């Protein structure tokens, strides 16, 4: 964890374009960093051949004097639930061991079209079910700030990779906090865009109504550039929304001066560790100095958001994981005699405990007799949450709070009690249920040097505004 290994993304791309550095050198540097940081176990696989081929092609085009794109030669790491060519995609699950994607995620294609190069696939909780990477069927990633602690999750490999600067940015997915919480635990920037802004095509589905894709980066400006390249409608994902008319990188117009910001009191309970309280208070002082008015508000239904999520999430998970039947792709049991047995045995052998647990909870809440009491009711409570957020945004420009109720916890600390593990998402799930954009910024460190995250939440589809305010706050917190 020392000085910057990488320049800002736009500068890297300029350097490649001008011939100051080659794409091949950048990709090889990234491979070197990955090799040196092996002990952290952030990476599942390296896409060596394809990355070098792409670098060669970009360097050849540079020689020809061609325009290379806004991310020319920029290496990046994708969470291993993004389908990519040139190597396996496993979602860190045994059931997809050795799965080779026949096509790539739209977001990967869009980044590649601007010259970015996927160099490796990052660890995650299997199928993104978890908050620590401990549910990975392969291994647990270690927090770059303290090897005895988790990096957070489920995008823990991506977050650790960026904190270790194995590549200048990474991609993650956020269904209930899976980008923001690990970003907070690892001391980097993690953005959950508005639902639908980045295509989910080619990303292994978890809970379809709350899944979003976003960047983990070292700065707000880098995150904004990735969004600007990847955002917008995709004919392969019917839930994608139109991008903003103005670029996500053009943020000068946004200033907190004269704006109203609210600290969410449900995210600032008495029980919050003092160091997290202090870091949040300090950020509030900085925002006040920028000219913002800060007040505290209550969103009374927020304490229900985790319960709401743990009904809706598993329901959608149980449907999405029904496709793993051992027939078309994925692990197939060698024991089976009949089709029915092939389904059951392949799934039982291939899925880990957390996937099984969530599939069964989802099946329960969707089953006849319980549907109204659980699933329908959770969707109604979801409406209540959306109403409360809308109401808050009538008065305030930005909502804030810590990203997580603790700093990075010890490896093994929460594995015995799934409910305890779920609680680490308590401050992040509401943004997924309501579809609003939210970002986690590093806002200081605790006494034990562990990073603390500050969460900013903006109204739905106001991602540019969120990034603009975040950039200003990031600067003030330096």
């Amino acid at each position, binding site marked *: 964890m020392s000085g910057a290994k990488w320049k800002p993304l736009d500068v890297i791309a300029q350097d490649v374009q001008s011939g100051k550095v080659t794409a091949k050198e950048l990709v090889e540097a990234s491979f070197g960093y990955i090799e040196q940081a092996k002990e952290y176990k952030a990476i599942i696989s390296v896409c060596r051949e394809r990355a070098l081929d792409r670098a060669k092609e970009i360097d050849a085009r540079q020689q020809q004097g061609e325009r290379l794109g806004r991310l020319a030669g920029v290496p990046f790491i994708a969470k291993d639930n993004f389908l990519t060519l040139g190597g396996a995609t496993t979602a860190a699950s045994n059931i997809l061991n050795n799965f080779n994607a026949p*096509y790539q995620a739209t977001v990967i294609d869009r980044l590649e079209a601007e010259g970015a190069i996927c160099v490796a696939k990052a660890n995650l909780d299997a199928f993104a079910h978890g908050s620590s990477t401990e549910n990975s069927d392969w291994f647990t990633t270690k927090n770059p700030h303290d090897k005895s602690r988790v990096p957070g999750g489920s995008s823990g490999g991506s977050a650790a990779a960026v904190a270790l600067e194995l590549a200048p940015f990474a991609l993650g997915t956020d269904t209930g906090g899976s980008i923001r919480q690990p970003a907070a635990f690892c001391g980097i920037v993690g953005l959950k865009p508005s639902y639908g802004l980045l295509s989910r095509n080619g990303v292994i589905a978890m809970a379809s109504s709350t899944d979003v894709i976003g960047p983990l980066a070292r700065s707000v400006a880098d995150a904004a550039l990735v969004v600007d390249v990847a955002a917008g409608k995709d004919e392969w994902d*019917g839930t994608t929304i139109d991008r903003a008319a103005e670029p996500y990188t053009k943020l000068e117009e946004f200033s907190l001066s004269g704006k109203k910001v609210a600290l969410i009191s449900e995210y600032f309970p008495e029980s919050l560790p003092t160091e997290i309280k202090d870091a949040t208070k300090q950020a509030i002082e900085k925002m006040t100095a920028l000219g913002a008015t800060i007040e505290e508000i209550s969103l009374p239904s927020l*304490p229900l958001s985790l319960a709401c999520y743990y009904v809706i999430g598993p329901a959608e998970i149980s449907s999405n994981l029904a496709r793993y039947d051992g027939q078309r792709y994925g692990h197939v049991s060698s024991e089976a005699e009949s*089709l029915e047995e092939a389904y059951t045995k392949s799934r*039982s052998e291939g899925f880990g405990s957390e996937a099984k647990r969530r599939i069964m*909870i989802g099946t329960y809440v969707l089953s006849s007799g319980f549907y109204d009491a659980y699933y329908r009711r959770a969707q109604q409570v979801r409406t*209540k949450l959306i109403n409360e957020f809308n109401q808050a945004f009538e008065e305030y420009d930005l909502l804030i709070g810590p990203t997580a109720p603790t700093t990075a916890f010890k490896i093994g600390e929460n594995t015995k009690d799934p409910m305890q593990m779920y609680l680490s998402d308590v401050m992040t799930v509401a943004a997924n249920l309501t579809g609003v954009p939210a970002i986690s910024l590093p806002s200081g460190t605790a006494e034990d040097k562990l990073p603390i995250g500050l969460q900013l939440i903006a109204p739905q589809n106001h991602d540019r505004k969120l990034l603009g305010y975040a950039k200003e706050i990031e600067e003030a917190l330096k």
Partner: protein
Amino acid sequence: MAKLTQEDILHLAKLSRLELSEDEIVQFQQEISTILSYVEELQSVDVSKLTPTTQVTGLRSVTRPDEIRQLPYSQTELFMNTPETENGYIKVKRVLS
């Protein structure tokens, strides 16, 4: 309401096409009951005037023109992860025993 029996767990496992070990049955009975008790707090909300939210974009019935298109991958590529194929079809185990 939320206290599940071992029979409940076996029934859920069957619906989910999962086969559980003795240990897993005990483990899931306890864990899933705990989680369902936690989500029980949703029962305290007056939902009578709330319509359910199934999605947040407000988009409706997104369609594309019904045309034959060239896809960026071949059938062979799509089948490259398939355990058993025959004459361009996926081969499955027998359905009836």
